[in-house]
């Protein structure tokens, strides 16, 4: 009995640990998408942030400096995305993919040049990492709490503030926002910057909280899973949070199932288990989501009519 309880608690804690970067990323992406800017580049922002967090923490010995560097790195990419998509009205998906490729390449190149460990940063320990606050076994570092707080915060901002009202409006009918005397570009830039901030935290979590250093491609598609969570959540914070937890749970179970022999099936291949969240993403995206709930202007560059 006690063993079962321990198992449940451990699985839940693992769920939360795995879900944290997804939640942060999804809330960030939500702001961007609500404003009408699709962000396929979450993955790249997170990866870049993870790298700079670990690199800075390793060089300065301070986890907080790492967090700062992570946010800065993600914001640079967010600004790049904004410059391409808002100022120059470029294709948002193409810009996002370019950012992903850029991050994938740049982290490896810089990592190799600076640390010479095949793209990895040196292992971090002590104050170089964000450590658990209350329960050392559960890994409840500050970013886990930040992720939990980001959900009601996102809901409150989007539903209850002037900025949120304008954000929702600009993602639906940007021309109406312009006609109301509000700058479409500035509104969207702010949304993209909030997205960068949260994606930066997600990246820092990966490399200096959950793990003890950066390894190449360590995001492993989590940015895309966060994107899927936004879609499952129909662009609403609380359901998107639920979707992140579901992915986290699946991952936690997958980790637990590794090496376990299931009755009648035998040992389930690790690769299959690890593929589950991605398969679920595909499955859900293909079948379960209506197309009508996305912000209407998402993906459409804003140009004044003649």
């Amino acid at each position, binding site marked *: 009995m006690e063993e079962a309880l321990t198992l449940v608690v451990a699985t839940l804690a693992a769920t939360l640990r795995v879900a944290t970067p997804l939640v942060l990323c999804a809330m960030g992406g939500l702001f961007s998408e609500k404003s009408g800017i699709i962000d396929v580049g979450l993955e790249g922002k997170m990866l870049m942030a993870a790298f700079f967090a670990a690199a800075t923490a390793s060089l300065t010995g301070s986890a907080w400096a790492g967090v700062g560097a992570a946010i800065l790195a993600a914001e640079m990419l967010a600004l790049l995305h904004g410059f391409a998509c808002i100022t120059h009205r470029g294709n948002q998906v193409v810009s996002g993919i370019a950012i992903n490729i850029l991050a994938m390449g740049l982290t490896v190149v810089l990592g190799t040049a600076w640390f010479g460990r095949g793209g990895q940063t040196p292992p971090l320990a002590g104050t170089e990492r964000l450590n658990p606050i209350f329960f050392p076994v559960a890994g409840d570092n500050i970013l886990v709490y930040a992720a939990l707080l980001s959900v009601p915060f996102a809901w409150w901002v989007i539903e*209850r*503030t*002037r*900025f*949120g*009202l*304008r954000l*929702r*409006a600009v993602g*639906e*009918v940007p*021309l*109406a*926002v*312009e*006609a*109301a*005397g*509000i*700058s479409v570009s500035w509104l969207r830039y702010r949304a993209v910057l909030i997205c960068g901030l949260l994606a930066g935290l997600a990246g820092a979590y990966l490399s200096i909280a959950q793990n003890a250093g950066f390894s190449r491609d360590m995001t492993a598609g989590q940015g895309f899973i966060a994107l899927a969570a936004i879609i499952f959540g129909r662009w609403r914070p609380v359901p998107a949070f639920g979707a992140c937890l579901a992915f986290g749970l699946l991952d936690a179970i997958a980790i637990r199932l590794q090496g376990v022999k299931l009755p009648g099936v035998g040992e389930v291949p690790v690769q299959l288990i690890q593929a589950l969240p991605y398969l679920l993403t595909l499955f859900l995206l293909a079948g379960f989501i209506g197309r009508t709930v996305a912000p*209407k202007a998402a993906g459409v560059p804003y140009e*004044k009519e*003649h």
Partner: protein
Amino acid sequence: MQELTADAAIELRGIDKSFGSVHAVRGASLRVERGSITGIVGENGAGKSTLMSILYGLHRADAGEILVEGRPVQMASPRDAIGHGIGMVHQHFMLVDSFTVLENLILGAEGGPLLAGGLAAARTELARLARDYGLAVDPDARVADLSVGEQQRVEILKVLFRGARILILDEPSAVLTPQETDRLLEILRLLRDRGVTVVLITHKLREILSVTDKVIVMRRGEVVAERRTAQTDAEDLAELMVGRKVRFDLDKEPTRQGETRLAARHLSLVDRRGVRLLDDISLDVKAGEIVGIAGVSGNGQSELLQVLAGIRPPTGGEMEACGRRVDAAHPVDPAEMRDLGVAHVPEDRLRQGLVPAFLASETSILGYQDREPFCHNYLMDGPAVGKYCADLMERFDVRPRTPGLRSSNFSGGNQQKLILAREMARNPKVLLVGQPTRGVDIGAIEFIRRELVRSRDAGCAVLVVSVELEEILSLADRILVMFGGRIVGEVAAGEADERTLGLMMAGARAA
């Protein structure tokens, strides 16, 4: 009518604006008196909307001066215009469908960083405006659930909510039934009587004559005339707009009807979400007649055209086109319909009628591109297509007569003439036409309507769908009215008038 005060609410001096090579507004100057209703009329592309967009700060003038209440002002963005007490109701509503009325009302004037206070204050203010101006709307209704007339009321309320003293309306009646339009005109009079200055942009002369104090006529980007409304009439204004005499009445021979070419029985169309778009539609179109389908936009006319043209299969009922039976189990595709002799001029020119990036010559054979003499052995014959297009352009007066020009570079009227030419050139047995003169200037309207009548006289069965009641009345031999996906009434052309049709269009069931 109230006495006009002499001082100007707005004065524009020498406004000039070009978009690329298009000189949209040329040195336009005008005055709008305070507390009056001023009409601005002109054909499509005459520069009315551009001029008002400049006044509202959506575009910046290349040259010229704007004065509001006697003071020169800069209009760099709508924020400036709003700050100077100018509000605009745009032709395409600037409303967020998924928002409530109240949320739309406060967008841009929220009264603080948190919404709660602003929403409460707006609710009180909305009640006051509703009382003062007779503009009642449910504050908590979602805009998507409102009728078009109500949405327009929300737009006007938005402007008043921001404390505007000058109200600009851009083609406000384009989407309204005649009754809703009358209601709108009443509201405008009431606003004027309460001291609001109103500028009404429209190409509908009836409205201008019934409500304005003064009319300003624009043509090709210039202000060409200014008249006291009491001292002018429709013919005078039309002539000023076009620059020559215009005949409104079409001389039509009485119809000589032949056999039924297109027959529909109990057609219905239900979309994937289960919404019933067409409901029990039965109609006949005979050779040698024009059947007009009237109705407010969005009552199933578009879907009906798509079904009749073979673009969407019906989900229930059946139809017969030139001897071919069509129902849910035996769908037809548009190419086969074309082979049967059913030609279709779609209502959305730029999406369904042509490919904007294609050359005019390519547009002129779209849908017929596989046929001789345009195509041999899977290869296009460019010179043959170009020659064919030049010939069509000559016959249908498409200007400029340049087959090698991109379709998007032609004006709306000339694009429409080209599409009409393509579909009519093969002497179809049935001609389906959606919104034949939408966005087309008056000169071309005349031409297009005459061609439709000519094709009827040549024995073609013509079905015209239009939201312009005046167009239906002048073209059709028989009028069907659609509302909510159903045909709610049929009237012979001789017995039809705007009032009864208007009532049917609004859903009031008539005999």
